[in-house]
């Protein structure tokens, strides 16, 4: 029986108050082992206080080929930013 251990994506919260951030990936037989391996591989120097593991096959991602239609429309919506609006120089606290 030759079967490669599945791949897991590792997310680490570096300290309370911050979000979990993607750190990398690793192979493990199950979720529990993925947590144990992630602790050894990605947090040898106090890099984290909490770890999430997700099996890579469960992540659905956008396709970079569609980046144009997905993300470019935001480029011409400058009116969503405060600097788009003209105010008199005298106005304060806005």
């Amino acid at each position, binding site marked *: 029986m*030759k079967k490669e251990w599945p791949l897991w994506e590792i997310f680490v919260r570096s300290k309370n108050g911050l979000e979990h951030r993607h750190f*990398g*990936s690793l*192979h493990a037989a199950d979720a529990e*082992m993925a947590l144990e391996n992630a602790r*050894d*591989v990605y947090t*040898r120097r106090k890099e984290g206080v909490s770890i999430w593991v997700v099996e890579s096959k469960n992540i659905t991602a956008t396709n*970079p*080929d569609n980046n144009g239609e997905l993300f470019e429309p935001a480029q011409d919506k400058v009116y969503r930013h405060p600097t788009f609006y003209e105010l008199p120089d005298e106005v304060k606290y806005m």
Partner: protein
Amino acid sequence: MSEAQIKILEEQFEARIARDEKIEPKDWMPEKYRKTHIRQMSQHAHSEIIGMLPEGNWISRAPSLRRKVALLAKVQDEGGHGLYLYSATETLGITRDEMFEQLHTGKAKYSSIFNYPTVSWADMGAIGWLVDGAAIINQVPLCSTSFGPYARAMVRVCKEESFHQRQGYEIMVKLAGGAPEQKAMAQDALNRWWWPALMMLGPTDAESVHTAQSMKWKLKRKTNDELRQQFIDQTVPQAELIGLTIPDEDLKWNESKKSYDFGEIDWDEFWQVVKGHGPCNKERMSARINAWENGQWVRDAAMKHAEKEQDRKEKQAV
């Protein structure tokens, strides 16, 4: 896709890199970019993994607890670096098992330096100081390389590598300042590791076939000869400071170019070791293959256990 279309995509791709944009795994990339990165990144990973062997040899014989914890941590880091790099390489569409297969059959190379033996404790000092020193010079520019997963892995690696060099130099400082026998050990280690460390920076520019392409893709920022000069210039004063002598009769400060002139490197030796005729090539490969094969039943058992647990949970849920 037609050849003309590919040509346009390639031009757009090169322009992105020239603008310092990063390439991510799912982006379109030329086949050659993918292959070159798989080759370089997997060889880098293999070097970390094989690099654990010469030092692992000394963990149980470290002279003090302080030295032992440091060496253990260093070797564990190297295992970690190998794992970061393997998973970064997998994003390019090669599996971990395929990479191991290439390593074990000799299709993929690893850094030749690890084919030299570690015969005394002072070698732990020389390796940290010189081998990790040369590795840092090679690796720092890769933190800003064009392929995102490689660059991110290298940022992590470089952060950790500095301790490796410092712990090695500390070993040399203590030995060089110790009894005459200890100083002789340090000098002997320097004599044996100096030239192989210089070879780690790669063949001379005239012989290096990948340099131009690698520069374009930011796999390289400086040429091999420039990196070697940098390594020599920063290392010679470190040797002098602790009273050790660089084993090169032609080594001399050149005031006009503000750097050292140095002797001829024995490139025949380099190519012999690359081709598999170094002192420890066979030993390293057999240690690696044995570890992998003897661990097969453990990996299988863990997988079986995971499947059984999954089944049990599903049954309980019914």
